[in-house]
């Protein structure tokens, strides 16, 4: 008798709210992060509308300051950081390692409720008056602004706790629950990437926690640790903030890279050119990512010694990212390529991530960054990576694993159309911003000289196309849930372990114990290098 799919367990709503099934926790997180993406996106659309004209268009300057702050906070901490790990990591890590669940299932459920609490506190801040410090909370403005800093830092702190809980769970799961015969070198590379991400999450997030506590206490009662008149140094806040926030960007991209590896191998029916290189690159990114935080502070007044050291170290990260890009591209060679929606997102990712990454090398050059710092150039750089990289990978993951999670297929026609809209819409939103920044337009500015207007209009037009593309995705995926064709266990012909169980998976994942002799990249009898 085949077991029921995990969607049905006969316990109704309690079976969802009190679930300890990692797959259900992943679904719960999916709704959380998707709603956050929508909220963050709405903030972005309003501010892009505001920027259509050089002076006031629809909101006041102080509202505008709140809009970009809320956009950043919601996108970074409520969407990007949890997105792929908490949704797809949760859903697939146990399956990929041959386990029936994560190491601490109750902790997993708790991490979701802590996420909800953090989100609720953050949204409370937005409702009771908002924050206008920028998502970076730089002192001394953050400690003196009359806006709702207290609620927000509390909310983000709690969101950070959720991240640490997830990180610990994944690390322990991967170390202790691998099935018999599934050694580290037999793990899908997605697992390696989530592992590297989890290490960063556990080690870096507490530092953010502390910096936010200090800002919160200072804001409420006065501490002066970053006040010049008390002897403090505002740059010290930046050190503490970026020591976390730079590794945080690797928390945001590494899971996406894991997805991309899975997608490339499946849709080319090829093993990766070099498994080992991809593992080394993932761990290398995680490690080097901790050494580069000062590149956010080149013009803050740091010593020239630090400027030099951080600039040089920042270049090293690019090496590991490049290794990955070359490996993915080389994996296409000799493969039987299926240009389905996930693969289209890979092509978009390749171009946007490489372009964005190279602009990162550009701003890491401190002498050039003097010109670009705090301009739209930097905004374009990180959106190319975050949206062009992580969001694209998130969408790839949704489409790749949709048949496995739901047991249904979506419409490829709509998938391809929307992917094109998302990628092109994105490009026309942010490419103009490189030009804006290079031409001198500062970031976070409400009003600007007339000569920049055409680039802003182009950017807003692109954002509209991007938004429309995303709306289409929601529509056809919902339609597929209701009336999509049934998918079998392995519609893509993948060698990866999650495709050897039913679609959708049963509650305890496996009917028979997983077979370790069948590797995740066994194509055409080729084993991975």
């Amino acid at each position, binding site marked *: 008798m085949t077991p029921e799919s995990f969607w049905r367990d006969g316990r109704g709503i309690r079976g969802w709210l009190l679930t300890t099934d990692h797959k259900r926790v992943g679904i719960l997180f999916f709704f959380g992060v998707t709603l956050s993406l929508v909220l963050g996106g709405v903030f972005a659309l309003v501010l892009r509308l505001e920027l259509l004209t050089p002076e006031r268009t629809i909101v006041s300057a102080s509202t505008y300051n709140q809009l970009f702050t809320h956009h950043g906070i919601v996108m970074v901490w409520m969407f990007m950081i949890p997105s792929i790990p908490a949704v797809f990591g949760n859903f697939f890590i146990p399956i990929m390692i041959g386990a*029936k669940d994560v190491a601490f299932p109750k902790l997993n459920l708790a991490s979701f409720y802590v996420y909800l609490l953090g989100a609720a506190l953050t949204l409370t801040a937005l409702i009771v008056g908002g924050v206008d410090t920028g998502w970076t909370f730089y002192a001394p403005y953050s400690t003196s602004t009359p806006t709702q800093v207290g609620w927000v830092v509390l909310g983000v702190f709690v969101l950070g706790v959720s991240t640490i809980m997830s990180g610990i769970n994944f690390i322990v799961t991967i170390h202790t629950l691998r099935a018999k015969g599934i050694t580290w070198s037999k793990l899908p590379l997605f697992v390696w990437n989530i592992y590297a991400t989890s290490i960063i999450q556990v080690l870096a997030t507490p530092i953010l926690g502390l910096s936010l506590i200090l800002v919160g206490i200072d804001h409420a009662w*006065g501490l002066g640790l970053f006040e010049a008149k*008390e002897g403090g140094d505002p740059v010290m806040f930046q050190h503490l903030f970026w020591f976390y926030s730079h590794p945080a960007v690797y928390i945001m991209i590494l899971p996406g890279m894991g997805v991309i590896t899975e997608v490339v191998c499946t849709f080319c029916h090829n093993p990766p050119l070099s498994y080992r290189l991809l593992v080394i690159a993932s761990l290398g990114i995680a490690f080097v990512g901790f050494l580069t935080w000062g590149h956010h502070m080149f013009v803050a007044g740091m010593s020239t010694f630090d400027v030099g050291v951080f600039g040089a170290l920042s270049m090293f990260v690019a090496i590991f990212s490049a290794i990955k890009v070359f490996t993915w591209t080389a994996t296409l060679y000799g493969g039987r390529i299926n240009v389905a929606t996930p693969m289209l997102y890979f092509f978009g990712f390749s171009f946007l991530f490489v372009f964005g990454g190279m602009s990162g090398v550009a701003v890491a050059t401190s002498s050039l960054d003097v010109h670009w710092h705090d301009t739209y150039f930097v905004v374009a750089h990180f959106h190319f990576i975050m949206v062009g990289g992580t969001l694209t990978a998130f969408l790839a993951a949704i489409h790749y694993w949709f048949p496995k999670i739901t047991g249904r297929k979506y419409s490829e026609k709509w998938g391809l159309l929307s992917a094109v809209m998302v990628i092109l819409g994105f490009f026309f939103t942010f490419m103009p911003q490189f030009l804006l920044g290079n031409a001198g337009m500062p970031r976070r500015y409400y009003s600007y000289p007339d000569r920049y207007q055409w680039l802003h209009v182009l950017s807003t037009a692109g954002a509209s196309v991007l938004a429309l593309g995303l709306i289409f995705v929601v529509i056809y995926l919902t339609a597929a849930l209701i009336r999509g064709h049934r998918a079998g266990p392995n519609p893509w012909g993948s060698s990866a372990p999650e495709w050897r169980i039913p679609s959708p998976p049963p509650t305890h994942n496996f009917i028979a114990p997983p077979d370790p002799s069948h590797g995740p990249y066994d194509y055409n009898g080729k084993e991975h290098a």
Partner: protein
Amino acid sequence: MTEVIYSDPRQRTHALHLGMWMFLGSETLLFAGLFGLYASYRAEFPSEFAVGVAHNNALIGTANTAVLIISSFFVAWGVHSIRGSRRRPCMISLGVAVLLGLTFLVLKSIEYTEHLRAGLAPGAHFSSTMLPARGFALFYTLYFVMTGLHALHVVAGITILTWLAIRVRRGRTRRDHRTELELGGLYWHLVDIVWIFLWPLLYLTHR
């Protein structure tokens, strides 16, 4: 559920220990930023920091260091006892550790009261005229934040140890007391270690 996930109880114990060490790592890193601030501000205001350290009550600070070290010993003794299935010595050890933890907090409160009376308060509330130098106020702000954050962890640790002692006393469940005690003990030892580093930085290095 755990019977489903873990192939044997040893695997679960192993997982719990690993998880605890990860958690301890993250707790330690919560203090990292404060050590960073201390190091940098001390580099900038070396003499003001030295004067600040000299003004701290080294007697109470040292007594507190001894108190925590002895309490750590008793926690370790409690784990040692439960491994030999000696429940009563275990409970007594934990009880002593809790009392010592409370002693720490009492001594800390006495110190804080002394400081506040002298106007040595954190941040904007600093009103001492002993030494108007900015670095001196900064030292005391850091002192309050570092010892305050540590004290919160002492409170958490006392709570955990008390709860563990109660569970051992009840002894009703056939659960693995040993693992619980080992994990709770690890947390308390971390609290001890953090203070081992705070003590010289805030009380001894007065030159």
